[in-house]
């Protein structure tokens, strides 16, 4: 049994009075890729934002490597090694691709490591190296997603949380982005992936959870979930 990186215990989140998460528990172990699946509005993004301290949970605990973090603010959580790549990407659009990536390494002090991480990101996304001097806003949607993921990798995260990285991309780019996630997984990265692409996400994940209107309604290995009735009825239309 490998070390537990992230453990979420019965968290509840309200959004302007409305319950969004109604007691969610899940965990991610070192080196695992865990997918959270659910329809729009199920609370997937809220879950990740709660971990980041951007959408505070009013009940429950969030443990990172055994330490309670649900009261910390976002920058402190990032400093611990939790990195969130938001669905909206939140790039710094007028500044260059490389400046965006370097801001991802803000929590690091060691220049040599920052350079090594930049080289790693450019190996992963050669297209970003070609475009490194371009403002991020001039990139295509797929390339911007690469910047967002690359920027997330710049700080050597202990866990990478990806929020719908394939959202709004053309099918060929969806495959490319998910292949990248697979590469990161093969490199031993711990990943919490929120996705609407059920088949691909389950295929990729070691384990998965199904989120429905703020509750976990199913969990298991990728293969188990793929065969489960909940997934078949809820997502695959079978």
């Amino acid at each position, binding site marked *: 049994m490998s070390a537990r990186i992230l453990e979420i215990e019965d968290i509840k989140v309200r959004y302007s009075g409305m319950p969004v998460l109604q007691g969610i528990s899940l965990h991610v172990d070192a080196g695992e890729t865990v997918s959270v699946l659910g329809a729009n509005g199920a609370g997937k993004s809220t879950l990740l934002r709660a971990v*980041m301290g*951007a959408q505070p949970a009013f009940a429950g605990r969030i443990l990172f490597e055994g330490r309670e973090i649900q009261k910390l*603010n*976002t*920058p402190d959580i*990032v*400093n611990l090694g939790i*990195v*969130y790549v*938001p669905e909206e990407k*939140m*790039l*710094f*659009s*007028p*500044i260059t691709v490389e*400046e965006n990536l*370097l*801001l*991802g390494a*803000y*929590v690091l002090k060691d220049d040599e490591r920052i350079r090594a991480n930049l080289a790693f990101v450019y190996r992963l996304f050669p297209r970003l190296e070609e475009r490194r001097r371009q403002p991020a806003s001039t990139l295509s949607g797929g390339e911007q997603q690469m910047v967002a993921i690359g*920027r997330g990798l710049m*700080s050597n995260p202990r866990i990478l949380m990806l929020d719908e990285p394939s959202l709004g991309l053309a099918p060929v780019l969806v495959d490319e982005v998910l292949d990248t996630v697979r590469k990161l997984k093969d490199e031993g990265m711990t990943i919490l992936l929120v996705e609407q692409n059920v088949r691909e996400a389950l295929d990729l994940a070691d384990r998965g959870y199904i989120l429905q209107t703020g509750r976990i309604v199913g969990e298991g290995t990728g293969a188990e979930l793929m065969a489960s009735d909940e997934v078949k009825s809820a997502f695959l239309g079978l």
Partner: protein
Amino acid sequence: MEILASSIVAGLLFGMVLALVALGLTIIFGVMDIINFAHGEFLMFGMYTALLTSQALGIDPLLTLPLAALVGFLLGIVCYRGFITYILRGPMIAQLLGTFGLMLLLRNIALLVFGSEDRAVHQGLLVDKSFEMGLGIIVPATKLAGAGLSVVAFIGVWLLMTKTRMGKALTATALNPQGARYMGISTEKMNALAWGIGGASVTVAGALIVNFWPVNPYVGLLFTMIAFAIVALGGFGSVPGAFAAALVVGLITEIPGFWDFLTYTLEMDWMYDVPMTSFKYMWIYVAYFIIMVVRPRGLFGWKH
């Protein structure tokens, strides 16, 4: 011809000082979308710092620049931490009225501490000296030094913001505060830093201006309005825009000089009777009005 050339030179030199005056306003707006009505009061405190320290120690006001910068930096941080951070949680109107209240507070503290009379620098290395620049242009040494040092300070702050890790984090916060938090950048720290840098740059400007401009507790408002005009013209949040716009506004303050030039050239009697110098600063507001109607984004556009 000399009048025209002198007016242009004087306008550009004053514009360079004004660029430093407006810099802090545009930085603070850029980082947290807040308009600081107390900006001119920071400048006033810079003027008093330079004047009183130089008189007390018997040194030239220019030597007090580091102290003025420190006072402005601390004043900015104290105002942010003690006050602004709370009103940021309120509605927009609270922010506007809040910095307006800060202006009144700082002004009345100055009245209480320094009294209401005008004070001016009478002694110093540069006072009453001037440079002959050719073409019959004579520039007071205080204004020349003020302009030169303003440009140096402006470039220094610009480099700080674009080349350092801290400055890049500040830029990231200006562009997308939530995105910056996800990078581990604390918005609170960056806001405080913006107020510190903004405060320091405008108090340094005040310490330069006091060499050729008398100070009283009410001096701030004029400079607040000038800085507003500059920031509106240059584009809210834009640093290069503020510099270019400040030169334009500097030239606008010399409109009476240009008028004199026209009067002497055209020799039309009625032109002599127009009391143009009395309306010296009116033209800044006229320009401000025209900018707001014609190009509200300013010359360089908004930060977004």
